[in-house]
C-alpha cells in the first residue's frame, strides 16, 4: 500500500515536471536548429550561439532587462523597507488604509497599471528607460513591503528599545538590531521583485519609449516575423546558468544546514 502510494506520487510529480519543462525542452532543441524558421528542422548547429555574441540588439536588450531588474528591485527595497517600518508604527486605521493602497498594483490587472502609468507619464516625462524604471519600481515596492511586513510584526522591538535605552544611536540600533531581523524578508522581497521585473511584459510594453527594449518586448515584436534563433540560444544559456547556480547554492545550503543542526543551532 505504502509502496503503491510512493509509485503514484512519483508518477504524478514526474507528470507535473514534464508539463513544466516540456516547452523549455522545445526551446533548447530549437537553439540547435540550423534553420531560420522554427517550423523546419535544418540540421544540428551551434552557430546561433556564436552569432548571439555579435548581435548587439539582443545583448542590449539583455543588459536593459538585467539593469532594470536590479535597479528597480534595489530602489524598491530602499523605499519599501522604511515604508513598511513607518506604516507598521501607524494607528490601526492608517495601517489598514496604507496596506490597502499597497495592494492596488498587485490586485490591479497589469494592463490597467501599465496604461494608467503611461497616460500619466505622457503628460510629464518622455517615455524611455526612465519611465520603464519608474513603472517597475512602482509594481515592485508592494512585493517588498508584503514580504518585510510579517518579519516586522514578529520582531522583538524591546531589544531595539533596550539598545536605545543603553545609549545606542538610532542608526546603530537600526543596523545592529532591526536590519538583521528583517533581512530574510528583505531578501525574499528583493528576489520576488527581481523575478517579477525580469518576467514583466505588459507594463514595460505600455511605458517604454522608442529604442528601449527588454527581452520581453523584443520577443513580442518578433512573434510575427519569427523569433530570431539567437533568442533560443540565449534562453538555453540562461537556463543552464540559472540551473547551475541553483544546484550549487542548494548543495552548499543543504550541507550547511546539516552542520548547523548538528550544532543544535537552528537558524532561519
Amino acid at each position: 500500500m505504502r509502496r503503491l502510494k510512493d509509485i503514484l506520487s512519483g508518477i504524478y510529480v514526474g507528470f507535473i515536471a514534464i508539463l513544466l519543462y516540456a516547452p523549455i525542452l522545445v526551446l533548447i532543441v530549437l537553439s540547435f536548429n540550423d534553420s531560420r524558421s522554427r517550423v523546419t528542422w535544418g540540421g544540428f548547429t551551434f552557430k546561433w550561439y556564436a552569432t548571439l555574441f555579435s548581435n548587439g540588439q539582443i545583448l542590449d536588450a539583455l543588459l536593459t532587462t538585467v539593469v532594470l531588474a536590479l535597479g528597480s528591485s534595489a530602489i524598491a527595497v530602499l523605499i519599501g523597507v522604511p515604508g513598511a517600518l513607518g506604516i507598521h508604527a501607524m494607528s490601526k486605521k492608517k495601517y489598514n488604509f496604507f496596506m490597502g493602497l499597497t495592494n492596488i498594483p498587485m490586485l490591479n490587472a497589469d494592463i490597467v497599471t501599465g496604461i494608467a502609468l503611461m497616460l500619466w507619464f505622457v503628460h510629464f516625462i518622455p517615455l524611455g528607460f526612465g519611465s520603464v524604471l519608474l513603472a517597475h519600481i512602482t509594481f515592485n515596492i508592494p512585493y517588498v513591503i508584503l514580504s518585510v511586513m510579517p518579519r516586522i510584526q514578529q520582531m522583538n522591538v524591546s531589544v531595539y528599545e533596550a539598545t536605545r535605552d543603553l545609549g545606542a544611536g538610532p542608526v546603530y540600533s537600526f543596523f545592529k538590531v532591526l536590519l538583521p531581523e528583517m533581512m530574510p524578508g528583505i531578501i525574499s522581497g528583493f528576489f520576488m521583485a527581481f523575478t517579477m521585473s525580469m518576467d514583466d511584459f505588459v507594463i514595460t510594453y505600455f511605458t517604454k519609449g522608442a529604442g528601449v527594449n527588454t527581452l520581453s518586448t523584443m520577443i513580442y515584436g518578433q512573434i510575427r516575423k519569427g523569433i530570431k534563433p539567437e533568442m533560443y540560444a540565449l534562453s538555453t544559456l540562461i537556463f543552464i546558468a540559472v540551473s547551475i547556480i541553483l544546484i550549487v547554492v542548494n548543495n552548499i545550503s543543504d550541507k550547511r544546514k546539516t552542520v548547523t543542526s548538528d550544532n543544535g543551532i537552528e537558524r532561519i
Partner: protein
Amino acid sequence: MNESEGRSSSRRTWLSGPYILWIAVFTILPLIVIFKYSLTDNAGSFTLDNISAVFSPINMKAIWFSFKIAFGCTFFCILLSYPMVLAMKHLGLGKKSFSLFIIILPMWMNFILRILAWQMILSNNGLLNLLLTSLGFEPVRIANTSAAIMIGVVYDYLPYMLLPIYMAIMEINEDLIEAAKDLGASGFTVFRKVILPLSVPGLLSGTVMVFVPSMTSFVVSDILGGGKLQLIGNIIEQDFTAGNNWHMGSGLSVALMIFILISMPFTAKHEDQGHESVIW
C-alpha cells in the same frame, strides 16, 4: 503581531514618507488620470459612454469568456497543484531545496517564448499530434481554440499556485499529523481535519495571484487563440494600440478594475491573518 510596540513610538512613521509620496505620485495620480480619460470623450467633455460600453454585447461576451478562462484556470491550477504538493511531501521532497527549485526555475525563462513553445506543441502538425499518431491515436485539434488558451494560462500561472500551497503545507508541523494519526485518524481524516484547513491561506494567496492575471492576460490568447477568441484584455489592448481609442480603453479598464475589486472580497479578510502574499 506585536500590538504594544510601534504604536507608541509613532515618531517612526516619518520613515514611510518617501513611500507615501511614491504611492501618491505613481499609484493614485495615474488612477486619477485613467478615471479622467474614462469619463471624457475625444473632445474632452464629460460622458459615461466609455464606462457603460462595458455592457455592449461585444464586451460582455469578452468579459464572460475572460471570467470562464480565469475561473477554469484557477480551478485547474488548484487541481494540479494540491496533489503535486502532497505527493512531494509524501516522497519527502519537501525538505529538499531541490523541489522548490523545480517549481521556480521555469519562471526564469521568458514566458512569451514558453507560450510560443506551447503553440508548437499544440498545433495541428505539432509535437503532441506527432506523439499521438506515432502511438496509434487520432490527432487532436486543439490549436486556436479556447482549450489551447486554457492550457496556456494554466501553464503560465501554475507556479503562482504551487508556491503558496507548497509553503503552507510544508509549514505544517509533522508532529501535528503524527498526533492525529496516533489518535486513530485515518489518512483522509488527517487530510480533512489538519492539512486542508491549515493550507487555506496558501490556497487563497494562490487564487489571488492566478485569478486576476489569467482574467486580463492578452498575450496568451493572442498567441494560442489564433485571433479568433478575445479576452477583455485583448479588447483593451486593441483600444490602445490599433483602435486609437484611449478613452474607451480607459473606460473598460476602470470597469475591469471595479469588477476585480468586487469579486475579491475575501482578500481583505485573509490579509488579517498576517500571511499575505508571501510566497517565498
